[in-house]
């Protein structure tokens, strides 16, 4: 909402000289009307003054230029060379003096023009940033000739309305009443403690009766609770007077002609949108407010054919729609130069319906944006009378007596309890009830003992929470900043902290980073084509994901059932940025459909890497993560049938029977689908499963009292024997003395027969109660070798 400070002064005595822009913005913001910006209209125009042409001669060296003299009230006439043709001696013009700045930053300098010094320039309205709308009487191809008397030398800005400052407000949706000059003036009056000067429109009787010419029916009172109209005949369409044009322009509304300008001006003042129909175009003088019928079409004032839907409200005559109610009028009933009689509409419409209609037609107008937030139905009549008063003031026509007002169900008054103690209890304040009464009264509430009558324009005050509503009113006028902080509330009766799960999540993040993986945050949505990209089978359950019915686009229409696509996309993108070695982790959710319409949102920790990395370093990271949660003795099972992973380089990770993770090299075909030709690695870790197998809190165990004996053995075995098989065999056969067993070498090649490999193990032996002898160790190693030979065809090298 743009507010002209000049227009504001019609309602409250608050000149710029008394309250400057900054103080005004600050105070209004703090009392609840947030100021977004202040625009000084004349900002970039300086050094242009009113001057009178005192002499005019043909330029000796030009066939079209004139050498003029102009009196700018400085005692010496300026000599100005101009190419304009529409001026004559005695005209008042806008003179840009040496050093003047014009709209668009153009600077005027004293300079010779074809040999004759010009000490400035006569300006056209466009050089002052204005248009024919502001200057309907001006010659569009010539310089601006002022058609009123002004003092010579007066700054042009104050002459053409550019001395105004315009304040732009961000009005919250609950305060539609502030989308009007009067609404903001009321707020300003309370904020600056000044009287609000309200005006009651006065009309003189000019005879006739509107009801004889017009008949109004509301077919749908839900969408149109009230429709009020008056008729003006013998209309004389003309440009509006200068004061009206300037006030509209300053408020960001283009002046058109007197009738249209009046409706716009009343909308500015009261916040009540109005519409003017050419009465001659309203067939049979019938106004019917109804929903559009199937297939009805209306060409709106902007020249666009609109296909109306049956949920849209239309203003119709006896035959056809003539306006989209509350949004825009139709061309078929537009006010034009020869309009003789006008029907003024001032109606109240249902906000939601207007909003949906405007959105569906992609036609948000000044009117619709006011209606959609809701308007006081009491406004229709006073706004209509104000419009008619202006018609009489501007001699724009004769207002017929009588108002047609259809208001089937008048809105009841709202009376709510006013309890100062409750208000102080909500605020934690100690504000006197006198202050409260005064503030509320000035906002338009009528206080009667312990009751408050809510002003009809305050649609936001609800009987469901009256104390809180009044508390807000009182607090914002009192000043939020004046309410004192309450030190006693600093202590908490609740112990703060992370839950166990949250702490584990935090810990795993730390471990990921110590393993060299960096955190990423990826979108929760994926494209349905991702499932193909990661080569999921047609039957895969993951394809049955939660779908967004109104997505931004197909690419973001699925809530992810796998984190793999997000990770692979991110890896591929990093590679396209030519980042060489990349390790990433993503702690995000997947969404699994549930019967109740919601989803199981499982936390998945995804690792991804390419570059200086391999399967075993990825496996190391997974193991480090498990070990951070004290999950040991993991079981790795080779996976060759997961379509997303390399069939020979992928594994499932189990703790007992719980599947904790899948990890491996990404299948080259999947990598290719992401445009990557190098090896990419990923691990998908089920956080919940991990937590479920989390080990117990560690307890102290006495350090060993006796030394260990280390024995290394190397065996040759068939190459398909896995490390897991051999180590399990060693552990099973090693007896109680075998403390641990680790692999320190695996070798294939020269010296080893084809189809075999050499595996070397380091065995650590220890007894709890004595120092072991060599013979103990020999026994153990022999037992191990025997078992390896018998069970795995593995023989000492």
């Amino acid at each position, binding site marked *: 909402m743009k507010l002209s400070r000049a227009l504001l002064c019609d309602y409250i005595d608050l000149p710029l000289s008394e309250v400057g822009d900054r103080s005004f913005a600050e105070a209004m913001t703090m009392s609840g009307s947030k100021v977004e910006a202040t625009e000084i209209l004349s900002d970039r125009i300086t050094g242009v003054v009113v001057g009178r042409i005192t002499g005019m001669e043909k330029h000796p060296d030009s066939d079209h230029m004139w050498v003029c003299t102009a009196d700018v009230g400085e005692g010496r006439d300026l000599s100005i060379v101009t190419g304009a043709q529409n001026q004559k001696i005695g005209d008042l013009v806008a003179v840009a003096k040496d050093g003047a700045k014009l709209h668009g930053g153009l600077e005027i300098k004293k300079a010779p023009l074809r040999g004759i010094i010009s000490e400035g320039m006569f300006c056209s309205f466009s050089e002052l940033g204005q248009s024919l709308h502001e200057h309907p009487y001006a010659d569009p191809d010539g310089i601006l000739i002022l058609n009123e008397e002004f003092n010579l030398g007066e700054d042009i800005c104050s002459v053409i309305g550019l001395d105004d400052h315009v304040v732009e407000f961000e009005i919250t949706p609950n305060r539609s009443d502030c989308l009007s000059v009067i609404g903001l003036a009321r707020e300003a009056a309370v904020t600056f403690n000044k009287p609000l000067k309200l005006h009651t429109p006065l009309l003189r009787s000019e005879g006739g009766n509107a009801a004889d010419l017009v008949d109004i029916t509301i077919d749908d009172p839900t969408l149109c609770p009230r429709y009020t109209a008056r008729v003006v005949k013998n209309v004389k369409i003309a440009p509006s007077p200068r004061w009206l044009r300037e006030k509209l322009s300053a408020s960001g509304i283009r002046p058109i002609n007197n009738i249209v300008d009046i409706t716009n001006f009343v909308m500015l003042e009261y916040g009540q949108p109005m519409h003017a129909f050419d009465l001659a175009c309203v067939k049979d003088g019938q106004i019917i407010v109804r929903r559009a019928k199937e297939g009805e079409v209306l060409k709106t004032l902007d020249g666009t054919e609109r296909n109306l839907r049956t949920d849209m409200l239309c203003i119709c005559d006896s035959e056809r729609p003539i306006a989209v109610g509350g949004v825009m009028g139709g061309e078929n009933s537009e006010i034009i130069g020869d309009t003789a009689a006008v029907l003024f509409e001032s109606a109240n419409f249902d906000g939601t319906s207007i909003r949906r209609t405007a959105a569906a037609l992609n036609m948000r107008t000044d009117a619709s944006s006011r209606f959609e937030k809701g308007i006081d139905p009491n406004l229709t009549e006073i706004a209509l009378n104000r419009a008619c008063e202006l018609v009489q003031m501007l001699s724009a026509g004769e207002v017929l007596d009588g108002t047609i007002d259809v208001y089937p169900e008048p809105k009841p008054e709202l009376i709510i309890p006013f309890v100062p103690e409750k208000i102080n209890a909500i605020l934690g304040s100690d504000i006197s009830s006198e202050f409260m009464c005064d503030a509320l009264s000035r906002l338009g509430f009528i206080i009667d003992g312990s009751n408050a009558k809510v002003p009809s324009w305050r649609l936001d005050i609800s009987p469901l929470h009256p104390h809180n509503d009044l508390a807000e009113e009182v607090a914002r006028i009192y000043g939020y900043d004046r*309410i004192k902080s309450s030190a006693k509330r600093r202590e908490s*009766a609740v112990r703060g902290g992370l839950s166990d799960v949250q702490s584990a999540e935090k810990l795993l993040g730390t471990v990921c*980073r110590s393993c*060299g993986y960096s955190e990423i945050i990826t979108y929760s949505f994926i494209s349905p084509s991702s499932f193909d990209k990661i080569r999921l089978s047609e039957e895969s359950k993951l394809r049955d994901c939660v779908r967004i019915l109104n997505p931004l686009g197909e690419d973001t229409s699925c809530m992810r059932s796998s984190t793999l696509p997000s990770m692979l996309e991110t890896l591929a993108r*990093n590679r396209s940025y030519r980042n060489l070695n990349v390790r990433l982790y993503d702690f995000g959710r997947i969404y699994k459909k549930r019967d109740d319409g919601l989803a199981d949102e499982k936390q998945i920790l995804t690792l991804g890497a390419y570059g200086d990395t391999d399967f075993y370093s990825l496996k190391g990271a997974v193991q480090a993560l498990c070990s951070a949660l004290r999950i040991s003795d993991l079981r790795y099972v080779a996976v060759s049938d997961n379509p997303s992973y390399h069939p020979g380089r992928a594994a499932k990770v189990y703790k007992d029977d719980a599947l904790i993770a899948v990890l491996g090299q990404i299948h080259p075909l999947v990598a290719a689908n992401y445009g990557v030709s190098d090896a990419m690695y990923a691990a998908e870790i089920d956080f919940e499963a991990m937590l479920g197998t989390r080990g117990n809190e560690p307890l102290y165990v006495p350090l060993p009292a006796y030394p260990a004996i280390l024995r290394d053995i190397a065996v040759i075995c068939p190459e398909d024997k896995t490390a897991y098989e051999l180590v399990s065999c060693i552990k099973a056969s090693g007896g109680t003395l075998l403390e641990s067993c680790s692999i320190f070498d695996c070798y294939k090649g020269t010296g080893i027969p084809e189809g075999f490999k050499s595996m070397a193990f380091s065995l650590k032996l220890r007894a709890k109660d004595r120092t072991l002898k060599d013979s103990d160790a020999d026994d153990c190693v022999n037992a191990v070798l025997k078992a390896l030979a018998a069970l795995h065809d593995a023989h000492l090298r």
Partner: protein
Amino acid sequence: MKSQLSKLGEIALSEIMGADTPELLESLRVKYLGKKGELTAILRQMSGLSAEERPIIGTLANNLREKIEAAIEENRAAINAAVLQKKLRSEALDVTMPATEPIIGVRHPMSIVVDEIKDIFIGMGFRIYDGPEIEMSTYNFDRLNTPATHPAREWTDTFYLDNESKTLLRTHTSPMQARVMETVSPPIRAAVFGRCYRKDEVDATHSPMFHQMEGLVIDEGITFADLKTLLHDMAVAMYGENTATRFRPHHFPFTEPSCEMDVLCHECGGKGCRVCKGEGWIELLGAGVCNPRILEMSGIDPEKYSGWAFGMGLERAAMRRFKISDLRLMFDNDIRFLEMFK
């Protein structure tokens, strides 16, 4: 023998002092002091001496032995020191050569800010709650006093998952207000962090997915003044001791009175600049006293309890903190970008 000894002594000491390796020194020790050494050989001849001479020569020989031993030890220390010095010199490194740095991953800038804010709230006695992102409109709208016709409910604004508009992607973390009030009895101090979704096209300041935090306090006798106190404390914890805040009226369906909290612009100190768009203040969060209807709908008696709630956009907090100019960078995950925030 006397002269024999003194001659031996002269030669031995000069040889020993001249030795420059541990090996040579050892061979000299053997040569003079060993079982078959020269001094030993001389001493063996002592049996042929008179009883008067023997102790004299004996003393001389012993003195000589000690002298030689001392010389060997002295020189050994010198040689060892020289050897060590040579070794150390040969081991010298170019300390300006590149280090072998362990690769340590980094946190996403958003997480850095989120972790900080979590710590602040935990310190103020808040518990952290997580909630569903796929939510019922009941929790997302109805239970927050959002009118049935509110524009935010439109399909143009909110992502829906069913045709009856019953399930959706939560548009804010506020549905957790109702969920927490349902499951936790007062006193409540809850903070919720998480993803939210709104139907905004991606650009430098918008994203269909974003992060929010929610705070909720419910207890007996909670007032607007309490809200001011704690939120100001939070701003001080986030931005430092001299942080100035202001509370300005605003509107939310679920709080009444509602406000927004601004912090004084750190760039210009309130004079007005590009960062604060000339206002001198930067908007940080929205807050307000819980609308009693919200408590009532979640089964908390508004006559007995009251509370306040606030919500804050985390992308903006992170972007402001690190002066990140484009929201898209936050979800692009370019490792070069991420590694800026070590």
